[in-house]
């Protein structure tokens, strides 16, 4: 998967960190660190993070080829 977060929009609500704690982490008060290339097996957790973001700042692209291979 490919993930990018629009950090202009992000307001550090941390909902993604609860939804997919392996892939999104807040450092300090509001610095978001995320995995831009999570494995396809994380699809459900990443989808939860996308949906839960109050400002819809997370964009994901599923890699069709990689997932077919997996």
């Amino acid at each position: 998967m490919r993930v990018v977060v629009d950090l202009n929009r992000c307001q550090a609500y941390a909902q993604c960190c609860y939804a997919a704690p392996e892939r999104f982490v807040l450092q300090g008060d509001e610095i978001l660190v995320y995995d831009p290339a999570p494995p396809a097996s994380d699809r459900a957790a990443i989808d939860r993070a996308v949906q839960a973001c109050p400002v819809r700042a997370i964009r994901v692209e599923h890699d069709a080829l990689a997932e077919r291979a997996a």
Partner: protein
Amino acid sequence: MTDASDGTLFAQVRDSANRADPYPLYARLRVRPVARQDDGTFVASGYAAIRALLHDPRVSSEDLPPAEHPPTGNPVKDWIVNPLKDWVTDRHRPFIFRDPPDHGLLRRQVMGQFTIARVQGMKRRTEGLVAQCLERCAGSRHFDLVDDLAYPLPVTVICELLGVPREDEPRFHAWATQLATALEPESRHDEALRARNTETFDAIADYMRDLIREKRRAPRDDMLSGLATAKDPQAGRMSDPDLIATAILLLIAGHETTVNLITNGMLTLLRRPRELARLRADPERAPRVIEELLRYEPPVHFRTRVARAPIPVAGTVIPEGAPLVLLFAAGNRDPARFPDPDRFDPDRADNQHFGFGGALHYCVGAPLARIEAEAALTALAARLSNPRLAEDPPPYRPGASLRGPKRLLLHIDGIG
């Protein structure tokens, strides 16, 4: 009289006759995104206006002690300016009724205990609790979603997170039910009700005081132990009054709201059997379904604030001191923000709803609410056989803000 100048619309919203479907009133209110009501209250119902006000530092959540806000005789205004003043002294205000910088310090301490590990840890447990509730009803042809599932679940979850001993849980159920009535403006008219709420507040405060002492003596791995023993680098140790206020807040806030999310959610799905079937076939739709429910039928319809200074917004100026209502449920249906807003559509893109409020006071318990709603709705979709609404609309509890059915009777063929 044109709709826009009808200064009684918010009074009509609070009228229980309109509880089952307040949305036409919201549409009329939105004609003026920020509308002055006859009693001097300003109601924000347009999406853009609500968003602007949520972030505006002049919009205050401070609930000041009675001495600083003598009653005006206008019950709605008094309630907004000072919702808990019958019970709360200046030192007993939870962070939901505080402004920065105090708010930030208190909230940070709570967030420090509302850890990802604790919340994630409740996921399995919540699924287990839902299964238990359904087991209890096995063999029955009737199911009251409120009493049989939506009501008991959140209290148990929050009690376990806080670290309330299991044997004390029944008392919490009763207290939570009672105190929810204090959050509605109409409670101020009812002297008997106010007296009962005061008693309840005292009882729960006494209980918490003892429990916190016990947690300090023998800390366990729970939120209350953490709050009672942790030391914030800036704020230091949380005071007993703050701790008690926080614990009570978490109990109440995590309770009625989640009941409503689950109950309104199932009601919405039962009215749209196709959506219920889709969720049953694909439980991974749950996050989308829940976000759309939070927009379409939010558990909290409005929150109140006070203007600390004149605020220009949406072509009007809210004067200093004016009570202010942020009508989230109306903003969530604003056609200027959401295409076809009255359609329930889990596949909606860009669903930035106010279901958990927003800005500094964004719901602390949102991740927990999502977990509970997902566990409940996916299990109900999967296991209830041929569920039908026994009455539509169902009877509602009195609350206009924390709005939800008093009961939701379902006919079922069985529980799988």
